[in-house]
């Protein structure tokens, strides 16, 4: 079972995994003991996604007006 609380898990990977698990759970051929494992993982993932939403704060960062290595010709005077 994959552990969703690892730092490299994103909301997207968690949601995709969750959707995949639900699809598998709903398929008839999954044996019971695996279904139980998958169900546990789905609970983890739902909790993980909810916590992410609860804790989220929009981050805003600003790139420099012109990067130092810019090949773009500097625009004279027009820095508003």
């Amino acid at each position: 079972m994959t552990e969703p609380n690892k730092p490299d898990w994103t909301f997207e990977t968690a949601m995709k995994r969750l959707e995949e698990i639900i699809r598998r759970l709903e398929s008839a051929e999954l044996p019971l003991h695996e279904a139980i494992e998958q169900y546990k993982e789905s609970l983890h993932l739902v909790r993980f996604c909810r916590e992410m939403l609860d804790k989220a704060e929009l981050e805003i960062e600003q790139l420099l007006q012109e990067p130092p290595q810019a090949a773009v010709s500097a625009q004279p005077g027009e820095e508003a």
Partner: protein
Amino acid sequence: MKGEDGVWSVSQLTALIKARLESDERLVNCWVVGEISNFKHHTSGHMYFTLKDDQARIRAVMFAGRNRNLTFRPEDGMRVICRGSVGVFERDGQYQLYVEEMQPDGIGALYVAFLQLRDRLAAEGLFDPARKRPLPRYPRRIGVVTSPTGAVIRDICATLQRRYPLASVVLAPALVQGPEAAASIEAALQRLAGLQGDERVDVIIVGRGGGSLEELWPFNEERVARAVAGCPVPVVSAVGHETDVTICDFAADKRAPTPTAAAEMVAPDQADLRVALLQMEARARQALRWKLDVAHERLQRAVGSPAWAQPKRWLDLRRQVVDHLEGQARRFGVRRVHIAREQVNRLQERLHRLDVRMPVRRASSILEQRHLRARTLMFQRLTQAKTQWERVAAALEALNPLAVLRRGYSVVYRADTDQVLTSVRQVQPGDPVRIQFADGSVLAKVAGGKEDGYDRTEQARLDL
């Protein structure tokens, strides 16, 4: 084509003029500016009018299929810019402009430039629907190209904070009006597109607020259109108000009427996501519940089978049989049953740990075998013992003195001493004696007697 006598028919001449005019590329898809007069909107939907300036006039027609999308109502005296081709209407001997597109003049050259660039880039395939890329579902980082001080970035951030605060906004500041704006927008796009690894942006919004056509002009420049179309990351264009359309809008993967709408377009709403999470939670639970129900039902069916309905009782019954056999066997010293019993106990323990039917079957068959063997063994011992006993009994029967008495012999005791009399010399006449028969005894007195020949008597005693 010409008649025999060198004279044209009217039709021939008209056809020649028509062919001549319509083959001139300059007269195909040309732009004309002029004033409308004699405007008629026919019931068929077609528009008939004359375009004129102070020195000339030309008849014009705009068919219903073309004028349906006009954003204004043409009328006499209005100055307009038309795009169309010159053709000849043979019946009336008229050349006229077949108008494809018409805009009120006043915006003049800029507007024509806009239309021409749009058509050129469209012909090049830059706006093809096939080029449009889908937007990511859950963007991690959202790039924004706009003025750092404008309302656009504020609206976008406010919308994302409310709907999808999971994302980061990466602002690439750009000038959004003035002669340097196009280059600035292009550079900002390139800087965002150049971010790699963890810094990579998943989608870019290019935007600015509403303004005049001149103010929006940078977004109609070719380099911006090409930068947008060539951007490796999907781009949403949100320029001006809903009614403003720019080349940038055509080149982008999606057009949003406002910056707020652009923010709504690039990210899902957390309210929807929370509902989706609830639904998935419920679906997972239901799926598992269903699987458990099915498994439970199967188990019930298995447990419901007669031999397995009460496994404990079934086992106890067999244990009782074994106990009973053991009790019997112990008497005959059959140790083997002991061993069998221990095995049964061990099997039973194992059975308790297992919850599948097969081992039970196997154990029960082993148990059955042991039972059978123990019984066979016991019967053997019993038969042996019986045979032995019968032999001993027969021997004993042969030695039983009572059996001799039954054949007519009797035993004589002295009545006073209970001594068995084996000789006539042991009694005198008048002595009391007891005579024992097979079925009882009598008391008697010796009346008299005589001794047989010494030797014979002695001999007879020795024979006995």
